[in-house]
């Protein structure tokens, strides 16, 4: 492969991670916080795959696939929580969900 160095991909991943972290910090809606979390996980995946190719090591790609499975699990549980909150007519604002009471 010609084209950009691995450093460019890692820089893109860093920017993507920063945007995801900003989304987690500034947004109040639980669903958008989960979406921003996906952005952060994808940034990690991009860095893993770029460095996997750079070092000719397949473990990075395997780890990226495992991260995808963990992200799917996290979405499963997180959206289950959102549905449970909605069923109890609770707000989805993360600032008001400060107590872990049933």
């Amino acid at each position, binding site marked *: *492969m010609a084209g950009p*160095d691995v450093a460019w991909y890692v820089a893109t991943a860093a920017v993507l991670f920063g945007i995801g972290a900003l989304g987690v910090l500034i*947004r109040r*809606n639980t*669903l958008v916080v989960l979406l921003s979390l996906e952005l952060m996980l994808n940034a990690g995946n991009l860095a893993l795959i770029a460095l996997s190719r750079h070092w*000719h090591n397949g473990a990075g*790609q395997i780890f990226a696939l*495992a991260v995808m499975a963990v992200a799917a699990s996290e979405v499963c549980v997180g959206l289950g929580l959102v549905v449970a909150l909605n069923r109890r007519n609770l707000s989805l604002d993360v600032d008001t969900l400060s107590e872990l009471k049933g």
Partner: protein
Amino acid sequence: MSGVVVASAGNALVWVVWVVAAFSCVGSAVAVISFSNPFFSALALIGNLGSLAVMYLLLSAEFVAAAQVLVYAGAVVVMFLFVIAYVGPRRETPWSGGPSWQTFGAVLAAGALLVEIVVAVGMQASGSLKHDGHVGATFGTPSWIGRVFLVDHLLAFEITSVVLLIAAVGGVILGSHTKRATV
């Protein structure tokens, strides 16, 4: 001579594809955290995942790119869209109302995190990320991934499947809880 021309043309093409993918990736990520309607945020995430899949293809990770599109755009985002439609529209305008101290602190914290990542990566690997290594033709193909996954990393594969099973059971239990609301 013609080989050099073809190689440089291919190089320029890879650069063009990378620039388009990187800018659409960052732009759609900004869109995800900026839309007031979570439905549009989820739709912007599809664009982000698609441009990331293009970058995975540039990094010769064909199987991961296909799995990305299937698992994320096919399953995760569709689940998000279903839940957003089920919960109903809950708008929130992220950048309105002037800069509050919370937004200011969040931007500062995210910027500090970004600077920290760049400094850490630059100090650890500034010299070794320059040259571009060449990989074999089988790198990233499904058969190669399958061999590496099921021979070298079988324990990780099994643990991943158990984690997915537990998450599915947890999602069902959370979703089927029928205790009366007390609020």
